[in-house]
């Protein structure tokens, strides 16, 4: 079981680094992405400063319209940035889903770990997927893999310095396909 958990962790690490490497080659180093990212950072910082200056004071109609317009502009640029990234993310998604299918077959029916807790409801359906027996603390490959991926992916992105700043994510809007918050 120990070897299985290490292997799954290793697979998650590799897929996280591989995705970021592919995204770097296809997206992050392109002029379009860099330009859009710089614009988003600049505009979001300006907008945050404007909001800080105004604070809780009541604003006139003109000032609030200006602020709304700036927010709208920022959201549009953020959306363009996400669109540039999305195409590659979808391709990577398909590729790694296929890989995941392969690993799923290899680990099918195998208890890869023991859970120190009993998952509830829907989670048990995932943690006990394709496993024999009724012990709810038996852990399947897919459950551990999902947890590993969720924990590793953002850390890898932060370590490598990819993704927008917190300000940009907060003000530009965090949609389903937006990159997670990093520095």
């Amino acid at each position, binding site marked *: 079981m120990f070897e299985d*958990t290490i292997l799954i962790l290793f697979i998650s690490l590799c897929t996280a680094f591989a995705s970021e490497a592919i995204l770097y080659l296809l997206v992050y180093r392109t002029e379009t992405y860099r330009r859009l990212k710089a614009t988003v950072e600049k505009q979001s910082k300006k907008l945050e400063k404007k909001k800080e200056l105004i604070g809780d004071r009541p604003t006139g109609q003109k000032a609030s319209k200006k602020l709304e317009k700036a927010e709208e502009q920022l959201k549009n640029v953020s959306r363009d940035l996400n669109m540039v990234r999305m195409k590659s993310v979808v391709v990577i998604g398909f590729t790694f889903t296929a890989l995941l299918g392969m690993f799923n077959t290899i680990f099918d029916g195998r208890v890869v770990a023991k859970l120190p807790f009993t998952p509830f409801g829907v989670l048990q359906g995932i943690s006990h997927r394709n496993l024999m027996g009724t012990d709810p603390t038996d852990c399947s490959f897919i459950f551990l893999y999902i947890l590993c991926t969720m924990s590793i992916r953002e850390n890898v992105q932060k370590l490598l310095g990819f993704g927008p*700043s917190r300000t940009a994510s907060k003000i530009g809007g965090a949609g389903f396909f937006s990159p997670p918050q990093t520095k």
Partner: protein
Amino acid sequence: VQGQRSTELSMAMAGKGSATEPLWKKAIVRQEKWDSKEDFLDIIYWMRQLLSVVTGVLWGIFPMQGFIGMGLFLLLNAGSVYLYSVAYQKVDEEEFGGTWEILKEGFMTSYTLFLVNWIMSYTTFHFG
């Protein structure tokens, strides 16, 4: 320019924080003022990840089980972040958008990291 440089140097030596000071130093030394909010939130983020790894491994060794283990982790995680921010660094939470913004920084990633470490350590030490 020379006067400015010597001021910066003495500030750095006094541990008052500067743009070139490494993040881990800023984390240990109490900062009078955070020039960069991003730095403080980064420290919170990485501190949480480290705590998750350590807690996960320890919980797996003891072993802590069930929702008690999970609850204790959540308490420890939130409590340490709060104490570090408010009691040690004495930051003005409003500058960061409120206590909630500080508390939620890196929470989900740290929680899943804790679960991974907890599961792996529990499996390794009790099921070979």
